[in-house]
């Protein structure tokens, strides 16, 4: 008898499911609603980068490559001292190696790296997974407002 009751209960569950809509997300047609800080891709704000190499040194995978050179600014005032500053030539992240730990973002003292929620950058050629600084810069557009350093000042 209890077997029949169990069977009926199971059929009842099936019948209830029939009345519900499917919870399938229609991904290529609709974008998923991701958490704001989800770890999709690393975006680079180039003007904040001082090529201090902290991110490249802390990266457990060594997937960040930085090249820079020094430029000298002439003295601003009479008898002043010349100043030198770093100019970023190359900032590459190899996303075929990256393990998305976010240590580079944590250690960056100048707020030049951010998480962006983009995930759709599968490539047919593995060489295209090495993103240069221009491509990393394009991801800045999708960095959430609250992650930017300006959000803190606004309060």
């Amino acid at each position: 008898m209890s077997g029949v009751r169990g069977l009926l209960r199971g059929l009842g569950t099936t019948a209830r499911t029939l009345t519900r809509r499917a919870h399938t997300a229609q991904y290529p047609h609709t974008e998923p609603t991701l958490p704001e800080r989800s770890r999709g891709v690393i975006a680079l704000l180039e003007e904040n980068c001082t090529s201090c190499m902290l991110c490249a040194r802390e990266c457990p995978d060594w997937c960040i490559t930085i090249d820079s050179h020094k430029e000298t600014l002439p003295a601003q005032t009479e008898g002043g001292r010349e100043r030198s500053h770093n100019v970023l030539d190359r900032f590459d992240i190899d996303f075929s190696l990256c393990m998305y730990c976010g240590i580079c973002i944590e250690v960056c003292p100048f707020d030049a790296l951010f998480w962006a929620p983009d995930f759709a950058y599968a490539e047919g050629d593995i060489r295209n997974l090495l993103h240069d600084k221009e491509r990393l810069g394009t991801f800045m557009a999708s960095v959430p407002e609250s992650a930017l350093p300006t959000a803190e000042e606004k309060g």
Partner: protein
Amino acid sequence: MQVVLNWGRRYSLWVFNFGLACCAIEFISASMARHDFIRLGVIPFAPGPRQSDLMVVSGTVTDKMAPAIRRLYDQMPEPKYVISFGACSNSGGPYWDSYCVTKGVDQLIPVDVYVPGCPPRPEALLHGIVTLQEQIAAETPGQARSRSGSRYADRPVTAGEVTRDLVAPPAQD
């Protein structure tokens, strides 16, 4: 003719999951009701490699596993496609410096699409599948894609050829 062939191949990819590590969980998630890649014509749980068109290598490929991957790839009938899913199978990922991890599954078999992530989201796999379908739509039947230039791509190999020899002991003085 070409359009019809490509159209048929594009939307009936029986997939063979080579799940080796945590990325396989994301693959399973992509196959379940929430993401449901049968919508895209990718049919999971092929009975075996001989009945499948697409192999998704998800996870860390070790040198020990390499002959098995190569053998199962050789058993798949043409046309066959490979998606490398996740950092480990793309290039070794966090283990690129390890003595026993293959530095990317593309050292063994030709890969059509690389999906980055550690692990990638299920949606990233769906994006990879869409990318692969675009590649299939553009190909000439019989002249499949990324295989040229790969070391072993155009001929079946025995397991012995992709197995690394034992390291010889150091020479005695």
